[in-house]
């Protein structure tokens, strides 16, 4: 199980803004372990999906070039204060994490 996502969901007028921080090593697979000189295998988040009222409002496909502990922000229309946003990710090793937040 991946580490918990930190999420903030806020209504800015009509626009629903979501900011999320996903603790993850995002290992690109090019680095070598200084102690063993072995290549550190790639381990990174590949998919992030956000749902509002059963509707996918945002999808991110990532490669290993996204920074460690990825931060993402996105916005959409048609939400209201009190609505829930669901966010989940999965990585290239089959790990995943999910969270939800209520729009303020």
């Amino acid at each position, binding site marked *: 199980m991946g580490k918990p996502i930190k999420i903030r969901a806020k209504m800015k007028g009509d626009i629903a803004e979501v900011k999320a921080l996903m603790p993850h090593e995002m290992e690109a697979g090019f680095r070598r372990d200084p102690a063993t000189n072995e290549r550190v295998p790639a381990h990174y988040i590949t998919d992030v999906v956000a749902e509002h009222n059963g*509707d996918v409002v945002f999808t991110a496909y990532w490669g290993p070039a996204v920074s460690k502990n990825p931060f993402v922000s996105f916005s959409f229309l048609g939400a209201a204060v009190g609505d829930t946003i669901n966010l989940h990710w999965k990585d290239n090793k089959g790990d995943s994490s999910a969270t939800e937040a209520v729009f303020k």
Partner: protein
Amino acid sequence: MKIDRRFFIRKVLAVGVLLALPRILFAARPDKAFAATDGDEAMATLFGETPVASDRVVLKIPEIAENGAVVPVTISTDLENVESISVVVAKNPTPLAASFALGPRSVANVSVRIKMGESSQVLAVVKAGGKHYSTSKDVKVTIGGCGG
């Protein structure tokens, strides 16, 4: 490795068919584009065409990135019917950093942080109404962020 001609033709045809399929099928990660090791190749695989430069695509990225491991990027556009937003770092070992699939309710404004191995051109590509538009910026990296 030598690539035989038959195999190559088959590959080209397969990619062509994939690109011709409706974008509903894009609801899967474009693994092939992510595997590309060359910026142009990544874009050809993902977009099937060279994006048209457009000042309606706004790419916000520092001109000088002190730390290549964390380079904040914000892409927005006032184009309508935006289907996807992608970030390509031309000189990274895997140039396609991120691709965001947007829906009809999305606001075309996305932020993310990326790694940059060295100073490079960074492209923001927006797919809107079936066409691709891009803006690029040259970013100078003081300390590379790919480890090594």
